[in-house]
């Protein structure tokens, strides 16, 4: 079942346009949304959550149409945004107490356990919290009602390395426990590398690639070879460095590239895997270049 489905989602600002975005996120799937600063990740999240109105397109959550005139669909969402509003003059406890009744599945026991694991003092007033502590409280608020859809926009920004690791553990547990779908926006790929099943790349408001992580890791390779004659128009190559007769290529379809190199009579062909981070950087660079050409 599609937990989140976006069809033709569009938002136009004077200086920036998002979409049209089509996206489908299945139950139990963890999707990494990767993009540079200003690519449209936060706008996309805000539209899905309802803090920004879409211009065109439709959103459905758990097969329920998400509109401003109905709101029960928001009970399925756990959201950490770029900014997380809270009652600053209240303690963490009181914030939990006031938000909890909005969610029928809220578990106070779970909230307190998460707070304990993250080492957050809930007795303090939120206005005395550091950025990291606010992020921890936001994480508790997002996870304690065991949402079916987790929308996390740079959720670990401000967290110290220990808290970041614990937060990722919590996410793994949440994902392992049920059919939660996760959409996780970041520009730090290493964060999502272990967790994500799919990686969606967004650039200048458009989804430029939507890939299964394993396929990406499998097909993208660094290929090295030795060949005397100059190489031109090598299929699927995104980066080519050469000091003749040695060549180093980055290919998004290693099989096709190696086949071509063999046909050209290249010798000593070797291919090695690339890290997801390296692949992501390459994709984003490529999409940036394309948009500048346009």
């Amino acid at each position: 079942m599609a937990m989140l489905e976006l069809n033709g989602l569009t938002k136009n600002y004077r200086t920036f346009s998002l979409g049209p975005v089509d996206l489908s996120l299945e139950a139990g799937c963890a999707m990494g949304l990767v993009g540079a600063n200003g690519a449209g990740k936060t706008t996309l999240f805000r539209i899905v959550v309802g803090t920004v109105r879409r211009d065109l397109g439709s959103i459905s959550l758990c097969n329920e149409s998400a509109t401003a005139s109905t709101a029960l669909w928001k009970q399925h969402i756990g959201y950490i945004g770029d900014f997380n509003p809270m009652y600053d003059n209240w303690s963490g406890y009181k914030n939990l107490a006031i938000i909890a009744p909005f969610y029928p599945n809220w578990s106070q026991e779970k909230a307190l356990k998460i707070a304990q694991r993250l080492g957050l003092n809930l007795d303090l007033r939120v206005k005395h919290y550091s950025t990291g502590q606010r992020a921890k409280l936001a994480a508790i608020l997002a996870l304690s009602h065991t949402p079916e859809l987790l929308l996390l926009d740079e959720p670990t920004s401000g967290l110290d390395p220990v808290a970041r690791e614990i937060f990722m553990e919590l996410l793994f547990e949440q994902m392992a426990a049920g059919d939660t779908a996760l959409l996780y926006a970041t520009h730090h790929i290493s964060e999502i590398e272990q967790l994500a099943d799919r990686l969606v790349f967004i650039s200048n408001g458009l989804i430029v690639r939507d890939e299964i992580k394993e396929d990406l890791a499998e097909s993208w390779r660094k290929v090295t070879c030795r060949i005397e004659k100059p190489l031109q128009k090598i299929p699927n190559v995104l980066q080519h460095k050469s000091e003749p007769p040695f060549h180093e290529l980055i290919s998004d379809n290693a099989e096709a590239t190696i086949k071509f190199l063999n046909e050209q009579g290249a010798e000593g062909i070797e291919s090695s895997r690339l890290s997801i981070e390296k692949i992501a950087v390459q994709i984003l660079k490529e999409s940036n270049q394309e948009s500048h050409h346009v």
Partner: protein
Amino acid sequence: MYSQLLRTEFVGGAKLQLLALTSILFLFVLFAIRGLPVGTFMGVSLIVYWAMLIASGAIGSEEKRIQLYARLPVTTTEISFAMWFMVLTWLAVHVCFWILYGVAIDPEFSISRILDIATTTIGVALFVSFIGIGIDLGALRSRIYQRLYLGVLAGLFTLAIFFDVSIGIVGNTDGIQIFPMALLGEGYLAISISILVLFFAMVADHLIFINSDHYLR
């Protein structure tokens, strides 16, 4: 979720409400001891009301409360109603104090004073709704509507002050006459027209709010 949202609003502003309530009670006792007329009590009580609205708006704006509500499982209609409910409930609290003061303390309190209270109440509600419209217009797609509206409103208020007409926060020599009541004259017809204007202003504010381009404020 409507009742939950109302509870959140009440609890969210509990300290401020307590402070405002204490202030009104203090003023009530102080004015009663000095035997001042109900009109004077109303004027000072209104200052407390405005102060409370401004403080509440400032805190809500700092905490990005609308942004918080927009994320919660409540509709924009529920948010709009809850906010209006708070504004009107607090106005109603003040009105109750005015009537109580008039009946219990002011020897000259009469049916015509009741009319004054009604006029003032509607005038204040109108003023709040005009300001609310001005704020909510800022979240529409184009800011031009807000600028135009505020320009017109500022012009009207300038005229009102120029012609010595009270505009809800600034009194005049006639005592408590509140814009646009003073422009419409006195009596039941003016009240009826003002109620109608208030109704349309509240509906307009609600429609603007639920059609906002964003709730990031």
